[in-house]
């Protein structure tokens, strides 16, 4: 008989595992930061610092999902339209993006990049029939829409799951429709209020 009170608390366990995974990266990052701060440090050193920060960010944000927790997002002031534009560029696929005016609020840039990358993987984005992304919004609310010819990427279900999880952590939701070889995805994102300049966000 399994005694429930002796079952390891998954949340505590996963948090401890995240700490275990981050420890070597943290030590490496401190070392690289010390070098990068030196005058005349090569640009590659600063690139390495950025890559280590990105690796640490990915672990911090996504690892909680392995323990059934919500992604640990960090909301920072920014323009969602700029974040999506950069994510499409970084994805390196043929996709058109129609983004309206800037959408300034507090967003998690890593999550936005992850959403866009995984959304785009669901559509066949070859130059002959590029996927179409549209970003519309007002205030802190935004809808990111993907329409295109459906692709069958590996781990497609898991990619939809990840987009849903990240959208939910962003106070929104994601829905997908697949019909006659076409895919349509709607991702609703709710940013947080960006603090006025010079004012700390609530709680800090």
């Amino acid at each position, binding site marked *: 008989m399994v005694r429930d009170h002796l079952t390891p608390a998954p*949340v505590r366990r996963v948090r401890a595992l995240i700490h275990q995974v981050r420890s070597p990266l943290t*030590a*490496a990052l401190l070392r690289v930061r010390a070098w990068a701060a030196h005058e005349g440090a090569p640009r590659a050193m600063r690139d390495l610092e950025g890559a280590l920060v990105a690796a640490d960010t990915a672990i911090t944000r*996504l690892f909680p999902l*392995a323990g059934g*927790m919500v992604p640990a997002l960090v909301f920072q002031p920014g323009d969602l339209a700029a974040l999506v534009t950069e994510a499409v560029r970084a994805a390196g696929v043929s996709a058109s993006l129609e983004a309206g005016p800037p959408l300034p609020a507090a967003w998690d840039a890593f999550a936005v990049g992850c959403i866009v990358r995984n959304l785009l993987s669901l559509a066949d984005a070859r130059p002959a029939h590029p996927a179409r992304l549209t970003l519309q919004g007002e205030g802190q609310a935004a809808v990111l829409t993907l329409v295109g010819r459906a692709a069958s990427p590996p781990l497609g*279900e898991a990619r939809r799951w990840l987009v849903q999880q990240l959208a939910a952590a962003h106070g929104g939701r994601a829905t997908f429709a697949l019909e006659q070889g076409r895919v349509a995805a709607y991702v609703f994102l709710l940013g947080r209020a960006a603090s006025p300049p010079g004012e700390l966000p609530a709680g800090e």
Partner: protein
Amino acid sequence: VSAPAPPEVPPDQRWALLCEELARPLAAARADFEALGGAAAAADGPARPVLEAIEEVEAMMAAVLALSFDIAPALQRQPVDLRAECARAVAAYHEQPLARPRVELRLEGDLTGRWNAWACRRVLHDLLAVALSLTDGPLMISAARAGAQVTVEIEVIGVPMSSPAGRALLDELGERPRQLHLWLAARLAEAHGGQLRAAPDAAGWITLTVVLPDPDPRASTPEGG
């Protein structure tokens, strides 16, 4: 703060996607390290620990994510010399400024085999941490091969199995351990087809034993010769 996953997405697919997402920035970091070039990144250069850190995270990521999803990790095996790994674990402990008990090693015969190097290090580190949490006195680590398996024992000298600490340890191992060190060591031993157990030695003291089967003992060539 729990967000149950939609039941239609199997854990192994979610695990695989998270592995992919987390491997991407690590690969970028590795590429940036290689772009450093020069003396800093050389085999004995000052930046080498950075690459070792990246490699360590790469080595553990898939296994630790799998364990977090409660699925058995498929560990890659490579030649490992447990003699060297035991010595490394003890040396690392003795280097700590607050190291108190004396940890002795008694290693017999050929202790090479095909296991996962990171997991072996982790098991030894975790078992040592558990043993150290039980005593301020000395510990004895012994390891020996018996046929197609190697057994590593950590004897907590002077702490009886019948003590409250010993009984608590047995309770933990009888169920699913709550202690991270014990849980991780047990799961990684199981992932090798082995097991972790606690029992009294001849003197009645607490002894943690990990058994690591070696599927092909003759194929093993220890790292570094």
